[in-house]
């Protein structure tokens, strides 16, 4: 069962979080993500949860991590400048394996840039923005419906893999209103139980340790320092560091093909578009307007970890065309994985690629 709504993307994101059992929101207002906070401020108290507007984004993500350890599904939402401020504590969440969801409704950067215009300029930042070697998960919704469903999914991934999961939407998807079928119930995962309480950070062969929620008697020590299986600092032992950080990296990277979600159209095409977020809508429109051309389309719903398997879905591909609302960020990643030319179609400033514009570029390759 489901019901139809006419929601804004940001509303759908907040409602998805609530449906996923999110009961803590800590954040700081910033355009164009603010509607998420505002929706949570209204809804969480009614759902028995807690909304807190912190003094800044650093505090926002800190409170979310704290709440997660207290056993709550917890999230924050922000945009570029706030995202930049969160980078240190995002690293802490990765190092301490704290499940949480961080929504970035991307606007035009760098700096304060264009607060009300759409961009996808933070796609590499979410991968590389915190110091040290990290590997988070990032999802990219392209519709109001996906703002809902991918948010639910983000909470599940966060709990399963014990990592921060990013929703890397853009202002267009966050602010537009459209039809959404809201399911009555969503599927929820749980955090793994602790196996060996004396070694709470010891992981099995899935590389993921159980979660020792605060208040349950585990007396767990959680630190952002390099730590051993007990959670105790051990900062000058190279082997221990290598073991820990490699595990943190691999627990996500080794299952990247499982985590990575994508949709394909016309997989036997020679000309293949790759896209995510709002530009995917332009590509879809173009494909719709030119059914005769049989153009391929790979729409990414997960960008990080990047599961290169998605590229092999297009065995005949001779060129990848990749419109992004940035100067070609994920195109750079694709270039690493293929010998086929990757043509970046960058667009910044807030406008979305026009289907017509994409068609004109396509024609050159047909």
């Amino acid at each position, binding site marked *: 069962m489901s019901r139809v709504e006419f929601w804004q993307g940001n509303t759908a994101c907040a409602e998805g979080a609530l449906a996923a059992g999110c009961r803590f929101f800590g954040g700081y207002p910033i*355009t164009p993500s603010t509607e998420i906070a505002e929706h949570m401020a209204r809804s969480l108290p009614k759902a028995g949860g807690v909304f807190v507007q912190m003094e800044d984004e650093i505090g926002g993500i800190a409170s979310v991590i704290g709440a997660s350890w207290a056993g709550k599904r917890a999230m924050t939402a922000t945009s570029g400048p706030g995202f930049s401020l969160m980078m240190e504590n995002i690293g802490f969440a990765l190092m301490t394996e704290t499940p949480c969801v961080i929504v970035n409704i991307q606007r035009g950067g760098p700096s304060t840039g264009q607060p009300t215009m759409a961009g996808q300029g933070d796609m590499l930042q979410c991968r590389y923005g915190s110091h040290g070697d990290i590997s988070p998960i990032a999802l990219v919704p392209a519709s109001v419906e996906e703002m809902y469903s991918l948010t639910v999914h983000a909470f599940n991934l966060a709990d399963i893999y014990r990592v921060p999961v990013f929703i890397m939407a853009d202002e267009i998807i966050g*602010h*537009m209103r459209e039809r959404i079928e809201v399911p009555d119930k969503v599927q929820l995962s749980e955090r793994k139980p602790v196996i060996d309480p004396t070694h709470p950070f010891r992981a099995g062969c899935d590389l993921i340790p159980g979660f020792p929620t605060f208040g349950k008697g585990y007396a767990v020590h959680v630190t952002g320092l390099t730590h051993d299986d007990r959670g105790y600092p051990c900062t000058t032992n190279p082997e221990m560091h290598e073991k820990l950080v490699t595990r943190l990296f691999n627990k996500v990277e080794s299952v990247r093909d499982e985590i990575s979600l994508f949709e394909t159209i016309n997989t036997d095409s020679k000309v293949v578009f790759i896209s995510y977020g709002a530009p995917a*809508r332009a590509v879809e429109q173009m494909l719709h307007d030119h059914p005769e051309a049989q153009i391929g389309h790979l729409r990414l719903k997960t960008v990080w970890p990047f599961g290169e398997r998605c590229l092999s879905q297009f065995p005949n591909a001779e060129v990848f065309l990749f419109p992004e609302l940035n100067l070609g960020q994920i195109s750079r990643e694709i270039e690493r994985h293929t010998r086929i030319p990757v043509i970046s179609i960058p667009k910044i400033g807030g406008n979305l690629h026009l*289907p017509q514009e994409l068609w004109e570029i396509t024609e050159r390759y047909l």
Partner: protein
Amino acid sequence: MRHELRLSGFGGQGIMLSAVIIGRAAVMYDKIFAVQTQVYGPEARGGASMSAVIIDSIPILYPKVREPDIFVIMSEEGFLKYGKGAKENSMMLIDSSLVYSRPGTPHVLIPATTEARRVFKRDIVANIVMLGALVKVTKIVTPDALEKAILDSVPKGTEELNLSAMKLGFTLAGG
């Protein structure tokens, strides 16, 4: 049946709300598809605010309005910024109480603000008057759907007022 609708006026007129009501009417009650977008940006405060709605019987892929065929214009600046370049066979509804210019393209003049003030002593419902007129003229959503969407969207206690405004719009548009 794709229609691209653009609404413009100044801040406080309820331009955004109007767009949402139309989208809601289409999606929730006419069971078709709609996408609503708008211009944010601090510059919109003093100047012209703009919102857009696409309506279609099939799912809408490209979410941005490319070439609107229907306009609702409620301020002079809104006309200059968002209405002037209207394409030939488009239809424009103009609040003639506030907009001085006129396009060379088909248009209907609705003195929404003056009439709202005269009839209800409340300028604020001028946008609903315009919505009534819009639906009357263009039929992009059914009057029934419009009514339900208005009832969903307006503050408690103002339902009657707003429905009367809608009907005034029907009337002013020759209904």
